[in-house]
């Protein structure tokens, strides 16, 4: 299977040993195993090392502005609901600069997958605190350590009413791949927060740290129980991975009065000049 892979070498801008490499493999495998047609898959991303992912997967993409990947993705999926739309970026991009779009797109419940590479630090701008950096992390700006409360994306998504809330770890490739596949198959907005180490700038939250602080939910876990999910999400010592929460809900095309069950992309809906004439000169 070579779909989503390039038939030539590509120059990848990540640091050697970066957690983004296994994430790329996981993502491509997930897309391949679901047998998706690459012409029907679109990535939307912003700025940052994680946001470069679309460059390295052979499919359509819109790599736009810092923090705005979700806004663009939301419109793409609204305009052509038949596409598989993946909004992808890092914790700074999606939870910091793009925070408002995160909140309001959970409310919209667009049919898209939101993948956030969460390494708890800024990479591309060289090591400043991100919205998920733990208190005490020393950075070039927070010389005495981070003093602001980190954002809890899982708890936030649950509180906002997300219908799919999942967390993975790039060190657990097989399980994270299955998590992404489940997110792609979900109807509506699916957030997948993926822990992964930044080998250059985060010396606290290392591969070993994630390994010892995370655990995977097993089959006995009931993923439709929101309070149980919230309890897991609020536990910052033992970090649960897997599908924390999933229920059926009405996605954007099922909610917005525009569609009425018709998912025909907008570019195929032609406007009849006769209808325009009737609106412009109604008395004729």
């Amino acid at each position: 299977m070579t779909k989503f892979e390039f038939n030539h070498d590509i120059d990848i801008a990540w640091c050697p040993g970066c957690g983004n490499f296994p994430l790329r493999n996981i993502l491509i495998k997930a897309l391949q195993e679901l047998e998706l047609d690459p012409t029907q898959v679109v990535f939307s991303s912003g700025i940052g090392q994680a946001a470069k992912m679309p460059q390295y997967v052979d499919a359509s993409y819109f790599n736009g502005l810092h923090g705005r990947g979700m806004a663009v993705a939301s419109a793409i999926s609204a305009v052509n609901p038949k596409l598989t739309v993946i909004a992808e970026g890092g914790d700074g991009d999606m939870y910091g600069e793009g925070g408002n779009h995160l909140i309001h797109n959970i409310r919209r419940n667009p049919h898209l997958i939101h993948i956030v590479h969460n390494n708890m630090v800024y990479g591309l701008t060289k090591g400043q605190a991100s919205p998920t950096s733990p208190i005490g992390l020393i950075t070039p700006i927070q010389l005495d350590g981070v003093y602001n409360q980190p954002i809890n994306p899982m708890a936030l998504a649950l509180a906002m009413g997300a219908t799919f809330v999942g967390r993975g770890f790039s060190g657990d490739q097989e399980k994270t791949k299955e998590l992404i596949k489940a997110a792609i198959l979900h109807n509506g907005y699916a957030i997948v927060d993926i822990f992964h180490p930044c080998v250059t700038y985060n010396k606290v939250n290392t591969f070993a740290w994630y390994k010892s602080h995370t655990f995977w939910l097993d089959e006995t876990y009931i993923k439709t129980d929101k309070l149980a999910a919230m309890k897991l999400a609020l536990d910052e010592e033992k970090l649960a991975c897997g599908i924390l929460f999933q229920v059926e809900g009405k996605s954007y095309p099922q909610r917005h009065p525009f569609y009425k069950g018709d998912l025909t992309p907008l570019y195929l809906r032609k406007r009849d000049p006769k209808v325009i004439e009737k609106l412009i000169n109604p008395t004729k």
Partner: protein
Amino acid sequence: MRDSITIVLSGEAGQGLQTVEEFLVETLTQEAYVFSSKEVMSRVRGGNNSVEIRISDHPIQALRYTIDYLFLFNDHAFDRLSPRIKKDTVIYGEAPFLKSVPTKFKTKEVAFLDLAKQAGNRLYENTAMFGYIAGMIDASSDNAKALITKRFTKRGEDIVSGNIKAFDLGYALGLVDADRPKALKPLKFTPKRVMTGNDVLTLGAIAGGVNYVAAYPMSPGTSLMTMLEEKSRDVDILVEQAEDEIAALNMVIGAWYAGARALTTTSGGGFALMTEAVSLAGITESPAVVHVAQRPGPATGLPTRTEQADLNLVLYAGHGEFPRMILAPGRLEDGIEVMSRAFYMADKYQIPVFVLSDQYWLESMSQVEHLEFNPKYLESFVVKTERDYKRYAFDQSGISPRGIPGYGLGYVKVDSDEHDEEGMITESFTMRVDMHEKRLHKFELMKEDILEPLISGATEKEKLLLSWGSTYGVIEEALVTNPKWGYTHVHFTQVYPLPTSVEKLIRGAKSITVIENNATGQFANLIQMTYGIKVSRRILKYNGEPYHIDELVTILEEKQ
């Protein structure tokens, strides 16, 4: 200045001024030339708002400062309008409302509330006033009653007959008003439609194929969004209220990327938030249509007033260099052409196109006979992709054919970083130069597609008067009624890039006067920069009001 009658209604927000305005204008447009506009305070209830209705026997599209007949809706409706009162202005109202009027002015008590009660309900008060004014100016009572019937039929027969009774009572009194004006009706007249700028821009967007709208509410840009949502019952338009203006323009760009014809609408403050995305449209060569409804700034400024001070903002918004187009409607009917053309140009040249209007132009009611649209503007430039498709291919036409994801066998790779033909990030200096020149070359291509200025007035073309946007109507009336001044009026509907066709005309002129509704002469500066000339005179107004015809005539007359 045309012979005209100016009637002003003054009261609080929520007192029904607009209903009386609509009734009067709809009735009058069956038999005379009429223009109306309102000025309101930024509040939902209370304060003091006024509506001006100007009637003439010749076409008009301008307001007059001095008032002939003023109707007060409460006891604090006079003060703010006192500078607009002249010796023979007649001020009408209930006795208590007239107490605030200095005795030197001519007042006339009319008990509209009593008339309403006689007709059966105090709620008919505004209809009684409508009847009175209709009687005064000898408007057709048949037309008026037909309107009343149409408006109230849904509410039941009693409401219709009550309102008609109130109208008749008012009408009879108005007919015998000793101060009623001389008849001012055109000898030949075909009934016209009255519409607002918002009405025509809405239709223009539909004629341009709009099918996606993302916007965040901000006066006076919101109405376009509201009206397109209403029209989405008749045509396919997906309207989404964005969480902020940043999202709005990013969504519009994403929508075009996926194959929509998308629009956002806002005012200066909201547009300021969009500027980064304007730049995104620049490098990604994404079409975008952005309606900027101007109001006075800086910052929150005067939220409900008018100004033309965001030309520089729209002209320079966004970091980096890239082509754009700015269109501004002047005549009411230009709204259809400008807005539909914006979609076509955005699609054809893969650029952001701005439609620059203002509160005054959007909310004034004026007359049209027949509106036309150009079906050409519906044409889509989207191509079906092949497997080896490259979004940013160097094409002979100068424009890289634009594919959309999911349509064809190719991938559509778009990047906000500098990119190669395929859309992959590059740091190659030569690729940078090639891509940048390809984008900027569109300026040259766009010269084939200029919306030419409207030229009227003196044929000598030595003494030019230049304008753009909403000042068209008032300037035309001033010049048509004063041919002795010898001005040639050149009105620009395409504000940027400016047409080369008038370069000779502008360079050869003996004098150039520019009239604008702002404080620094932004358009005059653009004219100077573009044509390498010096503007002789700038006429500027920036108190939040549009130009009034009598005011403009006085200004122009002073320095002849």
